[in-house]
Protein backbone atom coordinates (compact mmCIF):
# COMPACT_ATOMS: atom_id res chain seq x y z
CA UNK A 1 0.00 0.00 0.00
CA UNK A 2 1.34 3.39 -0.96
CA UNK A 3 1.08 5.70 2.04
CA UNK A 4 2.77 8.90 3.09
CA UNK A 5 2.80 9.64 6.80
CA UNK A 6 3.39 13.25 7.77
CA UNK A 7 4.08 14.68 11.21
CA UNK A 8 3.37 16.68 13.21
CA UNK A 9 -0.23 17.51 12.38
CA UNK A 10 0.28 21.03 13.74
CA UNK A 11 3.32 22.98 14.79
CA UNK A 12 3.85 26.27 16.60
CA UNK A 13 7.27 27.91 16.31
CA UNK A 14 8.57 31.22 17.51
CA UNK A 15 9.70 33.78 15.01
CA UNK A 16 13.32 33.17 14.14
CA UNK A 17 13.18 29.50 15.13
CA UNK A 18 13.55 26.37 13.02
CA UNK A 19 10.42 24.57 11.80
CA UNK A 20 10.81 20.88 11.04
CA UNK A 21 8.19 18.72 9.33
CA UNK A 22 8.74 15.04 8.66
CA UNK A 23 7.40 12.58 6.11
CA UNK A 24 7.84 8.84 5.73
CA UNK A 25 6.66 6.60 2.93
CA UNK A 26 6.13 2.91 2.39
CA UNK A 27 7.00 0.77 -0.60
CA UNK A 28 9.15 1.89 -3.47
CA UNK A 29 8.97 5.48 -4.53
CA UNK A 30 9.93 6.84 -7.91
CA UNK A 31 12.15 9.87 -8.15
CA UNK A 32 10.37 12.99 -7.01
CA UNK A 33 9.60 14.31 -3.52
CA UNK A 34 8.01 17.76 -3.48
CA UNK A 35 6.75 19.97 -0.68
CA UNK A 36 3.75 22.19 -1.23
CA UNK A 37 2.72 25.27 0.76
CA UNK A 38 -0.92 26.25 1.02
CA UNK A 39 -2.35 29.47 2.43
CA UNK A 40 -6.02 29.70 3.46
CA UNK A 41 -8.28 30.18 0.45
CA UNK A 42 -5.49 29.43 -2.02
CA UNK A 43 -4.35 26.40 -3.94
CA UNK A 44 -1.14 24.61 -2.94
CA UNK A 45 2.06 26.01 -4.44
CA UNK A 46 5.28 24.11 -4.99
CA UNK A 47 7.81 25.19 -2.38
CA UNK A 48 10.79 22.93 -2.99
CA UNK A 49 11.40 19.44 -4.35
CA UNK A 50 14.18 16.86 -4.24
CA UNK A 51 15.18 13.88 -6.34
CA UNK A 52 16.77 10.87 -4.59
CA UNK A 53 20.21 11.24 -6.15
CA UNK A 54 20.99 13.88 -3.50
CA UNK A 55 20.50 13.79 0.27
CA UNK A 56 19.85 17.48 0.76
CA UNK A 57 18.58 20.45 -1.21
CA UNK A 58 18.54 24.03 0.00
CA UNK A 59 16.69 27.00 -1.40
CA UNK A 60 16.99 30.12 0.70
CA UNK A 61 15.60 29.39 4.16
CA UNK A 62 14.05 26.07 3.05
CA UNK A 63 15.94 22.77 3.10
CA UNK A 64 14.83 19.25 2.27
CA UNK A 65 16.75 16.39 3.87
CA UNK A 66 16.28 12.97 2.27
CA UNK A 67 17.15 9.54 3.70
CA UNK A 68 16.49 6.99 0.98
CA UNK A 69 17.30 3.90 3.05
CA UNK A 70 14.95 4.99 5.84
CA UNK A 71 12.31 6.16 3.32
CA UNK A 72 12.06 9.49 5.11
CA UNK A 73 12.38 13.11 4.12
CA UNK A 74 11.92 16.32 6.01
CA UNK A 75 11.43 20.04 5.47
CA UNK A 76 13.42 22.50 7.55
CA UNK A 77 12.48 26.17 7.60
CA UNK A 78 15.26 28.28 9.06
CA UNK A 79 14.63 31.69 10.64
CA UNK A 80 10.87 31.05 10.51
CA UNK A 81 8.75 34.14 9.81
CA UNK A 82 5.06 34.91 10.40
CA UNK A 83 4.60 34.84 6.62
CA UNK A 84 5.56 31.16 6.69
CA UNK A 85 2.36 30.37 8.61
CA UNK A 86 0.52 28.00 6.28
CA UNK A 87 -0.28 24.34 5.76
CA UNK A 88 2.52 22.23 4.32
CA UNK A 89 2.07 19.00 2.38
CA UNK A 90 4.77 16.58 1.41
CA UNK A 91 4.15 14.33 -1.58
CA UNK A 92 5.66 11.25 -3.18
CA UNK A 93 5.68 10.05 -6.76
CA UNK A 94 5.21 6.27 -6.63
CA UNK A 95 5.49 6.00 -10.39
CA UNK A 96 1.73 5.67 -10.88
CA UNK A 97 1.17 8.92 -12.77
CA UNK A 98 0.09 10.89 -9.71
CA UNK A 99 1.34 12.38 -6.48
CA UNK A 100 0.39 10.85 -3.15
CA UNK A 101 0.13 13.61 -0.57
CA UNK A 102 0.87 13.51 3.14
CA UNK A 103 -1.84 14.50 5.59
CA UNK A 104 -0.55 18.05 6.02
CA UNK A 105 1.01 20.13 8.79
CA UNK A 106 -0.49 23.40 9.92
CA UNK A 107 2.43 25.66 10.83
CA UNK A 108 1.95 28.77 12.95
CA UNK A 109 4.80 31.20 13.56
CA UNK A 110 4.29 33.35 16.62
CA UNK A 111 6.09 36.66 17.30
Amino acid sequence: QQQVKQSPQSLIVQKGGISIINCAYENTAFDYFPWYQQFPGKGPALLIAIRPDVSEKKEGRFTISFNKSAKQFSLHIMDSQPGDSATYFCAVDFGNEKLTFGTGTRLTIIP
Partner: protein
Amino acid sequence: DAMVIQNPRYQVTQFGKPVTLSCSQTLNHNVMYWYQQKSSQAPKLLFHYYDKDFNNEADTPDNFQSRRPNTSFCFLDIRSPGLGDAAMYLCATSRDFPSDPQHFGDGTRLSIL
Protein backbone atom coordinates in the same frame (compact mmCIF):
# COMPACT_ATOMS: atom_id res chain seq x y z
CA ASP B 1 -0.56 36.75 -14.72
CA ALA B 2 -2.64 33.84 -13.34
CA MET B 3 -1.68 30.58 -15.02
CA VAL B 4 -4.42 28.22 -13.78
CA ILE B 5 -7.76 29.94 -13.45
CA GLN B 6 -10.77 28.41 -11.81
CA ASN B 7 -14.29 29.71 -12.08
CA PRO B 8 -16.29 30.44 -10.13
CA ARG B 9 -14.36 30.91 -6.87
CA TYR B 10 -17.50 30.14 -4.89
CA GLN B 11 -20.44 28.03 -6.02
CA VAL B 12 -23.62 27.29 -4.16
CA THR B 13 -25.97 24.64 -5.47
CA GLN B 14 -28.95 22.71 -4.21
CA PHE B 15 -28.87 19.10 -3.19
CA GLY B 16 -29.20 17.00 -6.36
CA LYS B 17 -28.87 19.93 -8.79
CA PRO B 18 -26.11 19.42 -11.37
CA VAL B 19 -23.18 21.78 -11.22
CA THR B 20 -20.17 22.41 -13.46
CA LEU B 21 -16.85 23.84 -12.37
CA SER B 22 -14.36 25.14 -14.90
CA CYS B 23 -10.60 25.39 -15.15
CA SER B 24 -8.45 27.07 -17.77
CA GLN B 25 -4.68 27.21 -18.16
CA THR B 26 -2.26 29.45 -20.05
CA LEU B 27 0.73 27.13 -19.55
CA ASN B 28 -0.01 24.78 -22.46
CA HIS B 29 0.59 21.82 -20.14
CA ASN B 30 -0.26 18.30 -21.20
CA VAL B 31 -1.70 17.13 -17.91
CA MET B 32 -4.69 18.52 -16.07
CA TYR B 33 -5.85 17.22 -12.69
CA TRP B 34 -8.96 17.63 -10.56
CA TYR B 35 -8.65 17.31 -6.80
CA GLN B 36 -11.19 17.44 -4.00
CA GLN B 37 -9.99 18.97 -0.74
CA LYS B 38 -12.03 18.94 2.44
CA SER B 39 -11.25 21.03 5.47
CA SER B 40 -7.90 20.20 7.10
CA GLN B 41 -7.27 17.36 4.67
CA ALA B 42 -4.86 16.72 1.84
CA PRO B 43 -6.02 17.13 -1.74
CA LYS B 44 -7.60 13.93 -3.05
CA LEU B 45 -7.14 13.19 -6.74
CA LEU B 46 -10.40 12.56 -8.59
CA PHE B 47 -9.09 12.14 -12.15
CA HIS B 48 -6.60 13.50 -14.63
CA TYR B 49 -6.09 13.96 -18.34
CA TYR B 50 -2.88 13.47 -20.23
CA ASP B 51 -3.79 15.39 -23.35
CA LYS B 52 -7.08 13.71 -24.25
CA ASP B 53 -6.42 10.48 -22.38
CA PHE B 54 -8.66 10.31 -19.32
CA ASN B 55 -7.68 8.48 -16.12
CA ASN B 56 -10.28 8.04 -13.41
CA GLU B 57 -9.22 7.19 -9.85
CA ALA B 58 -10.74 3.91 -8.68
CA ASP B 59 -12.54 5.49 -5.73
CA THR B 60 -13.95 8.53 -7.56
CA PRO B 61 -17.76 8.35 -7.35
CA ASP B 62 -19.69 7.92 -10.62
CA ASN B 63 -21.41 11.18 -9.73
CA PHE B 64 -18.25 13.01 -10.83
CA GLN B 65 -17.46 13.42 -14.51
CA SER B 66 -14.96 15.48 -16.45
CA ARG B 67 -14.50 16.93 -19.90
CA ARG B 68 -11.46 18.37 -21.60
CA PRO B 69 -12.55 19.89 -24.93
CA ASN B 70 -9.11 21.33 -25.69
CA THR B 71 -5.65 21.80 -24.16
CA SER B 72 -6.63 24.94 -22.26
CA PHE B 73 -9.92 23.99 -20.65
CA CYS B 74 -11.15 21.27 -18.33
CA PHE B 75 -14.52 20.91 -16.62
CA LEU B 76 -15.73 19.03 -13.56
CA ASP B 77 -19.37 18.00 -13.65
CA ILE B 78 -21.14 16.81 -10.52
CA ARG B 79 -24.36 15.23 -11.71
CA SER B 80 -26.30 15.00 -8.44
CA PRO B 81 -24.41 16.73 -5.64
CA GLY B 82 -24.88 15.39 -2.14
CA LEU B 83 -24.07 17.09 1.13
CA GLY B 84 -20.83 15.12 1.30
CA ASP B 85 -19.62 16.75 -1.91
CA ALA B 86 -19.25 20.14 -0.25
CA ALA B 87 -15.53 20.86 -0.52
CA MET B 88 -12.86 22.89 -2.25
CA TYR B 89 -12.21 21.65 -5.78
CA LEU B 90 -8.73 22.26 -7.09
CA CYS B 91 -7.52 22.11 -10.65
CA ALA B 92 -3.83 21.60 -11.35
CA THR B 93 -1.65 21.24 -14.42
CA SER B 94 1.78 19.84 -15.14
CA ARG B 95 3.90 19.64 -18.25
CA ASP B 96 4.26 15.90 -17.83
CA PHE B 97 3.54 13.32 -15.15
CA PRO B 98 4.20 14.01 -11.51
CA SER B 99 7.95 14.52 -11.72
CA ASP B 100 7.15 17.92 -13.17
CA PRO B 101 5.78 20.52 -10.78
CA GLN B 102 2.03 20.78 -10.51
CA HIS B 103 0.57 24.26 -10.77
CA PHE B 104 -2.66 24.68 -8.84
CA GLY B 105 -5.48 27.11 -9.27
CA ASP B 106 -7.02 28.78 -6.24
CA GLY B 107 -9.95 26.42 -6.25
CA THR B 108 -13.72 26.60 -6.28
CA ARG B 109 -15.43 26.37 -2.90
CA LEU B 110 -18.62 24.34 -3.43
CA SER B 111 -21.47 24.56 -0.95
CA ILE B 112 -24.55 22.34 -1.06
CA LEU B 113 -27.88 23.58 0.33
